[in-house]
């Protein structure tokens, strides 16, 4: 059974490019256009990994992460974050605070994103659905 990736970004082109690459790498992909939508999709079915943008209009990546980490049932969900922010972002601090797999800076390589997802999921047990 293919592992499930939830992809969340308010930039439709980025969302689509990442979706194509991840799907073609053999994963099942669901997409959300903002943090709130992603949260609702997680409530319906918890993915094996979440890939989310940091800055979004309705519930940004950090708020979504905080909600997930605060929910006992899904608190260990692996999270990869994407951001167009640069030096002003306390990257390492956020990774440690929220137990984030990695924060990829935009523009990112879809190839590298898939490679990170694969590596993470190989180390993580499949979530019972």
């Amino acid at each position, binding site marked *: 059974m293919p592992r499930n990736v939830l992809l969340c970004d308010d*930039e439709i082109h980025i969302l689509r*490019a990442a979706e194509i*690459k991840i799907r073609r790498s053999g994963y099942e992909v669901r997409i959300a256009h903002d943090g709130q939508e992603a949260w609702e999709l997680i409530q319906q079915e918890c993915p094996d990994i979440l890939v989310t943008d940091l800055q979004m209009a309705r519930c940004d990546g950090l708020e979504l992460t905080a909600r997930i980490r605060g929910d006992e049932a899904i608190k260990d969900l692996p999270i990869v974050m994407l951001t167009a*922010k640069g030096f002003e972002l306390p990257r390492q601090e956020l990774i440690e605070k929220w137990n984030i797999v990695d924060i990829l800076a935009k523009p990112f*390589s879809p190839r590298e994103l898939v490679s990170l997802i694969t590596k993470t999921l190989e180390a993580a047990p499949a979530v019972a659905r």
Partner: protein
Amino acid sequence: MIGFHLPLVLSCVALAASLALAADRIVGPSIHLGSALVCWGLLAVGAGLPVAMMGWFVRRARAAHEAALRGLDVLAQGDVRSLADGKYDATFSAPPMDVHSADRLNHLRQRLADIGQRLQDLEQQRAASESRLRRLTAKAERTESVLRGFSDPVVAIDKFGELILANQSAEELFEFDAASTEDRVLANLVHCEKLVELLSDTRKRKVPSQRSCDIAIATDDGSEHWYRATARGITADGEAAEADGSSEGAVAVLHDISSQKALQKRNAEFVSSVSHEMKTPLAGIKAYVELLVDGDAEDVATQEQFYEIINAQADRLQRLVDNMLNLARIEAGVVEVRKESRSLNELLEEALTVVGPAAEAKSITLKRDLSPLYLGVYADHDMALQAVINLLSNAIKYTPGEGRVTLRSRLEDNMARFDVEDTGVGLAEEDRLRVFDKFYRVHKDKDMAAGTGLGLPLVKHIVEDVHGGRIDVQSTPGEGSIFTVLLPVAATLT
């Protein structure tokens, strides 16, 4: 004194008697009467002379005594010059008959003259000191007046860390009144650890130096004011430094650098914002190029689609760069303006076409309400179009999906007017006043849409500086905004 002259009187009497007896023996009784007369004469002289001398001496002694008393009176009256000159009594300078008394009187006179001289010196010193004190007081008052009028807060401490000076600005900034409290300890008056530490450290330093630090002070409205405090050690005039080499105290002047800090912050936000705006289309370009390279486009149609996306993202990047350059060029006054008489409605229609897809993507209705009149404006096509596009894009960005953006044009008071009205998030009054400031972005709406904080400042420049028009905004938070532009009319045709 009578006792002192008695032997002399008796000697004179004895001498007279002896002379009378000797005359009897030598010349005989015939001349007895003459001898007696001589003897009695001598006796009278022997007795009278001392008495007269005594009287004269007593008068002199009394005069000297009175002169001395007058000297003391002069002394008591403070006429030290007369005392020093000995002018208070001319008779005082005459030597007394008695050597011993004369010495004593001379000594007393000399002492009084010395005292007079000393008092005169002291009087001169006091006058000089008074004059110096007046000068110093005037100087101190002037200095204090300058310090009081100094808009930069000034605080000084002594070697014990106690306040010796604070001007009005400092008292207002740190909210204390030095005159109404006995407590002089700076740390108790000024609740600013960094400033207290800076002054204390500066005072303790052995080498005279200038030190500074930036201090943030919270204001009542919750915002921060930044000050650069510059401190120097102070030494008392003509006094040696303390044994340990430290200063007599330290003085700090606080200069308000809030505007500099705000500019730095806005610049940092601008760089961050521009970086974010550039990286987003770049991310699209990179991702689709990689998909094409990896053969992830399943068919030619998908490939074409990817190329189109790449092209659109490149255009987006181009617009951002153009916006930045346009603003920089307009601000620098180096932009070439080509104004011609043209139809405002045509410009508005053209702008609507450009922003149409963005409105559609958010399901926002773009409503046209254009004047049936020909509104001729004397305008630079590209710049005016850019201004309208920016206003419409802005309205679309900050209007939630399913909302409405209306573009309206009218002739009003011989001016061509157009409004961009939206049903968006609206602006609070403080944001409304600053929305045309360069780099300013409404904090609460930052995450709603990416922006550089350059769009509206650019519009204002184009409307007001390039076309001599006016721009204003009315807004109700939660309901929407209306941006109104007035341009001088070149021609109107019905």
